[in-house]
């Protein structure tokens, strides 16, 4: 047998490092003991208790709604920004816009959260809106940082798109808007879907920014989880964590499967075209 190289060993070790803590968490979520670290036998009681917790359930619903609206708005804004960055010729302020688009990617969350809250406080004083903070302010905050991620994903796809198809459509008399909706949009649709999913998970996951800009009216799931785990490990949260890990793994597997299938179909169509052409 060939000796595996150093980098292969590191890759496997790294993957084990990434997955082991989560696997341990999943196993311990089925622990019947109230003490999280002592194994006392298999039980699903914490899942039952989780589904009885009204506070957690309503936080899940709030988070899902905010994530849906934030992801949708972020896809619109991020796609426009990506278009400006990739397709538009240099204009005054293009560099400024491009760096402003990608800045939220690295900005520490405490700074983004603090500055947005102070903006909302100012706006409330000046124009009386937002009167109280809650879902709408979280939506604005999440849209702002999620569109940065969408812009990067869409921009990298846009750069690969073959411009000649769009030019052909325009030559045949299609207006820019029609060209966009009939040619460009279908081509970049996978990137839009990926960007939407990314924005959705980012919004679901955010704790710091949401804590800054939310009011008493809106409590998201991470806020509930955080306030209960800062006091210590709790078996109910283990059950919740397992469900989250399960949902994300399933979604990822589905995305991967669909991607592979569409890839295979495209390859087959290409093969057919080639043989037909001959």
């Amino acid at each position: 047998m060939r000796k595996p190289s150093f980098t292969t060993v590191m890759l496997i070790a790294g993957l084990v490092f990434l997955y082991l803590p989560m696997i341990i968490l999943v196993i311990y979520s089925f622990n019947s003991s109230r003490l999280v670290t002592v194994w006392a036998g298999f039980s699903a009681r914490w899942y039952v208790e989780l589904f009885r917790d009204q506070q957690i359930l309503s936080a899940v619903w709030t988070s899902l709604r905010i994530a849906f609206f934030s992801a949708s708005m972020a896809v619109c804004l991020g796609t426009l920004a990506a278009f400006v960055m990739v397709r538009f010729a240099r204009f005054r302020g293009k560099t400024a816009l491009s760096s402003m688009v990608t800045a939220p990617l690295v900005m520490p969350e405490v700074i983004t959260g603090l500055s947005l809250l102070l903006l909302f406080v100012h706006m409330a004083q000046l124009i009386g809106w937002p009167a109280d903070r809650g879902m709408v302010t979280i939506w604005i905050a999440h849209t702002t940082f999620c569109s940065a991620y969408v812009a990067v994903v869409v921009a990298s796809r846009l750069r690969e798109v073959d411009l000649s198809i769009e030019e052909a459509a325009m030559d045949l008399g299609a207006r820019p808007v029609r060209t966009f909706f009939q040619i460009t949009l279908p081509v970049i649709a996978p990137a839009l879907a990926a960007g939407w999913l990314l924005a959705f998970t980012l919004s679901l996951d955010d704790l710091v920014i949401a804590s800054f800009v939310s009011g008493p009216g809106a409590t998201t799931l991470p806020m509930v989880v955080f306030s209960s785990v800062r006091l210590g490990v709790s078996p109910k949260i283990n059950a919740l964590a397992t469900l989250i890990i399960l949902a994300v793994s399933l979604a990822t597997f589905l995305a991967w499967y669909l991607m592979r299938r569409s890839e295979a179909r495209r390859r087959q169509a290409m093969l057919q075209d080639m043989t037909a052409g001959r």
Partner: protein
Amino acid sequence: MRMTNFTARLQRLFKPSRGWVIAVPLLWLTLFFLLPFGIVLKISLSEAAISIPPYGPIFDYANETLNVIVTFSNYLFLTTDTLYVSAYWGSVKIALLATVLCLAIGYPMAYAMARAPAHWQLVLLLLVMLPSWTSFLIRVYAWMGILSNNGLVNNLLIWAGLIDSPIRMLNTNFAVILGIVYAYLPFMVLPLYANLTRLDTSLLEAASDLGSRKFNTFLRVTLPLSKGGIIAGSMLVFIPAVGEYVIPELLGGPNTVMIGKVLWEEFFHNRDWPVASALAMVMLAILIVPIALFHRYQSRELEE
């Protein structure tokens, strides 16, 4: 006649031209990203006050004169209390250490991925990215149960007879660094992998044809060529790690002072908004060089 004129104007207004495509994201980001920093700057220069909101005005218009009252006391206050200085220093130290560790673990991982057979690469990429899509909070929380005094690691060590009493691991700086490395490792691997897959393999072949040994080739060819990926990955880990709040709060102890945590406490518990704003401005000043480095890499990527 007037009517058609009006509709024509309306049509012109709503014609989705170039200007509109630029204006919408530009307006949104100016309003919700740029302007807020101006406000943070403004509040960091104003006096704390017992009112709602808890800070004094900067512009005061009375008797037909406009008075601008600016105070640097908040910034001066940051230098007088050793807590703030040590928090900045502690954050930078912990973030640097975590970044170096991420690079040491992530580089060989990315290298192995880039060299893997093509049909494996997508699966490996997915495996590395999957953890970063599951909740950040949950992944940090997972370590609480593993590192605690009666947690898995201590139980294993005691069972194996290596130690008699549990080692304190949770609520230490070690746990914070481990948490940061764990949470941010995928952000190091991704840009490195993207960079290494684009590497021109003919250069490597040329080096080996000329008799260069594997390690020498790596040091003299691969490493310099992957500089962009190293910078991007390191900045993606270092910058958010400096401002990290969740990891030191859950895994850190009383000796862990990081600036994100201090800012949070200053804002939510002491309700001293001007000092919290000044803390944020100084943090931004510290991070301006790393952010600029990241942007230079990012814009080069976009132009390619």
